[in-house]
């Protein structure tokens, strides 16, 4: 029994990371109807940036976030203004194919630079620290910290979207990009900010996951798919939906992994397909 509770807690906590991947996708889809196929590879890229920062400056990966998050935000802004903005229009093929091309470029670029070796970020004693809730139920400090950060990030994004000037601009551009320009909004800049924010969030999640799980240049697509599944499972109505989606995905994976490690990821995919079959609008909303 306690084993099951531990497993479910594990799943919930890792679900927070998936939710952060998802919220990054949901944000840019919401603002500019862009689905970035390279999302997962950018998540992995953030882990490699953290690897360089930790190795060259001798920092703990958690501290390296101070550098990695703004670096990825900047990369996001540049990518959007330099590349994705040129693809935005009525035709959905250009953004899709350009981001797919970018995905392949990042993957193979990382392969050239870092080889196909498995890596992990080492965070020191915090990795094994646990909090004891009862004799049988232990919760790792790091997973707990990750989950708390995920909740804060998602709550923060929700507040940013509905309570700040930039959130207002995001919604206005999303509603009607043509008219938004008449308010004095430079859509290209707004799109750039949305992508910067998206990548800043996934950089945080990408680094946190890289402390817990191995990564290599080819892991990007899996990260993308986890985020995507969390978005669809949760429904596109609010950022909190992605948290629920991420947690469900995490729990399903954790339970399947205790049955057979080979089933872990497959079970997550199947859960997603089940939701698609029986509740395509997601568990908590409508498909936009």
């Amino acid at each position: 029994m306690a084993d099951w509770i531990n497993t479910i807690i594990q799943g919930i906590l890792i679900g927070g990371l998936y939710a952060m991947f998802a919220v990054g996708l949901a944000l840019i889809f919401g603002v500019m109807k862009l689905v970035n196929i390279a999302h997962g590879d950018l998540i992995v890229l953030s882990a490699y940036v953290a690897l360089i920062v930790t190795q060259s400056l001798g920092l703990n990966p958690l501290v390296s976030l101070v550098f990695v998050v703004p670096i990825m935000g900047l990369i996001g802004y540049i990518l959007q203004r330099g590349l994705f903005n040129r693809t935005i229009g009525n035709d959905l093929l250009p953004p899709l194919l350009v981001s797919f091309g970018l995905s392949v470029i990042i993957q193979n670029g990382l392969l050239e630079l870092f080889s196909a070796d498995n890596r992990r970020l080492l965070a020191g004693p915090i990795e094994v620290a646990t909090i004891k809730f009862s004799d049988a139920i232990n919760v790792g400090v790091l997973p707990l910290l990750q989950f708390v950060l995920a909740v804060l990030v998602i709550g923060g994004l929700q507040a940013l979207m509905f309570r700040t000037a930039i959130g207002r601009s995001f919604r206005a551009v999303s509603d009607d990009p043509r008219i938004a320009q008449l308010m004095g909004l430079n859509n290209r800049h707004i799109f750039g900010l949305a992508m910067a924010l998206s990548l800043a969030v996934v950089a945080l999640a990408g680094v946190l996951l890289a402390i817990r799980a191995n990564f290599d240049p080819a892991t990007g697509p899996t990260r993308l798919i986890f985020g995507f599944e969390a978005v669809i499972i949760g429904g596109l109505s609010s950022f909190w939906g992605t948290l629920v989606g991420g947690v469900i995905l995490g729990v399903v994976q954790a339970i399947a992994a205790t049955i057979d490690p080979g089933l872990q990821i497959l079970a997550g995919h199947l859960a997603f397909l089940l939701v698609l079959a029986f509740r395509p609008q997601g568990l908590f909303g409508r498909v936009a």
Partner: protein
Amino acid sequence: MLDAPLLKVRQLEAFYGDFQALYGLDLELKTGQVVAIVGANGAGKSTLLNSIAGLMATRPEAIELAGERIGGKAPYQIVAQGIALVPEGRRLFPSLSVEENLVIGGHMKRPGPWKLARIYELFPTLAERRHHPATALSGGQQQMVAIGRALMSNPRVLLCDELSLGLAPIVVRDIYAHLRAIIADGVAAIIVEQDIQQALKIAGHLYCMLEGRIVLHGAARSLTRESIAAAYFGV
């Protein structure tokens, strides 16, 4: 220099792909003046306003504001220069509240008399419904939000596209009464209207468009009903 036009449109052309919508248009607007543009559907009235607002590509010298070339600039740069458009069909942001719609109109923070409080003074019903979603309002109230949203940028030139579209006559009269008060405050305006009567009541100067060209213009007073009708229908 006092008489120099505030807004000058010279030899303006506009295209949708291969289709030419405007052919060498000339138009002038002086400070404090109200110009009406009338014409049948498809004459190019909205295209003219959209071109001035920067939504259509134009040559730099085609549009001048206070002597400065603004043709071809991006819409957000043109708002900053002091031209605001109330678009056809109002086009409020559905996911923003009434107040958010107004506030975002003032995004550029151009200095001037129009602040949120003053908009609410002008349209008290909006103050009561400030936290409602903008699209939950009646058509007339939505038009008020659209006008208020444009005013929040403290424009020198206000462009109004078909304010009466889809509104009951009594609501249209109310909207135009408000517009008169706004104009009395000193803002210049170009008003596109299919309703010639409404246009003649408010504008000092009238331009009549047909198939992308200006076919008649002059002081509203000097034009006869027959000459306008002839120009309107191209007979």
